[in-house]
């Protein structure tokens, strides 16, 4: 199975490594050549360039990829690339990282598979507070 990971930051590079470990053939795309360093001893593909450019997506082999992961640091860039991967390249499995929960919900409705770490944090934090058992806290004696 082939995957293209667009945006090779903390998230993208880790996803690429995990997929590669599981036997996927992975190509990463990033504007910054230095992000290759995050991948260590990388045996997969790596393309330097902006993923809105058709030549970059072609070079990454998006045309015959089974999956695309889009995780650049720009939400708007991600939704555009995600939709291009889906509609122009016909990739059935496109997963897009979005930081803004409302945009994530909106594009989920439009048919993109979105992952929103902010929403996850909101849910976990809220649940953690609700489920909170007060713990005894050492306080300074009023002197």
């Amino acid at each position: 199975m082939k995957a293209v990971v667009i945006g090779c930051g903390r998230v993208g590079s880790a996803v690429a490594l995990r997929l590669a470990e599981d036997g996927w053939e992975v190509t990463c795309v990033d504007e910054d050549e230095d992000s290759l360093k995050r991948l260590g001893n990388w045996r997969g593909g790596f393309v330097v360039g902006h993923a809105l450019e058709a030549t970059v997506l072609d070079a990454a082999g998006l045309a015959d990829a089974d999956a695309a992961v889009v995780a650049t640091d720009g939400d708007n860039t991600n939704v555009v690339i995600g939709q291009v991967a889906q509609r122009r390249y016909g990739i059935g499995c496109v997963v897009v990282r979005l930081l803004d929960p409302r945009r994530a919900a909106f594009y989920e409705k439009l048919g993109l598979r979105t992952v929103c770490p902010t929403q996850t944090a909101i849910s976990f934090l809220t649940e953690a507070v609700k489920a909170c058992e007060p713990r005894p806290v050492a306080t300074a004696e009023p002197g």
Partner: protein
Amino acid sequence: MYLIVAGGGKVGSNVTRSLLAMGHEVTLVEQRRDRFDRLEEEFGPVVLQGDATEMYVLERAGIERPPDLVLAVTGDDEDPLVIAQIAKEGYGVAKAIARVNDPRNQQHFDLLGITQTVCATSGILGLVEHEVPQHGLVKLLELRQEGLEVVELQITGDSPAAGKRVAGLSLPDGARLVSVTRHGVGEIAVGETVIRPGDQVIAILKPGLEDRLRRALVG
């Protein structure tokens, strides 16, 4: 009309000024604080500070009314594209016009159904080509929604159309001559119009027929 203008750069601020002078109701959204301060000084409460790709900012700007038109002229190409998409698909705004900076991104706007775009780069390139025609055919106007375009062709002494009547030309189906300009004076092309070397001919056609039209007229 009620309009939201996203992006208070040169285009956004000048358009807002003109729209207000025409008596329209406008909300101008600008993210950058320094720019916002300057705009607020000129336009007052018409200006709102925020990132227009955030839905709560658009809602404060009144996108739920909804506006008659959203004009997205902010930032990199993906920002206006997302603003136009959210406006149309999320809030039922009937018309959204988006600015394209890099003509190579036009395909993304087309793909995502943002059909009304303005690209200054393409426009200027068109004008340059008009002055320095390379292939004898210059695009003057693209009617994207109608699926038509208007082109101009330069007739020379070697052109197959030179010396012929318009009615006697074999043009591809889907192309028609509109006018013939000779010595700077344009006339509507009719069947009897004779084409001469040195003429500029304007034609309307379906995209994709450019080469066949060029072969028929210019060679």
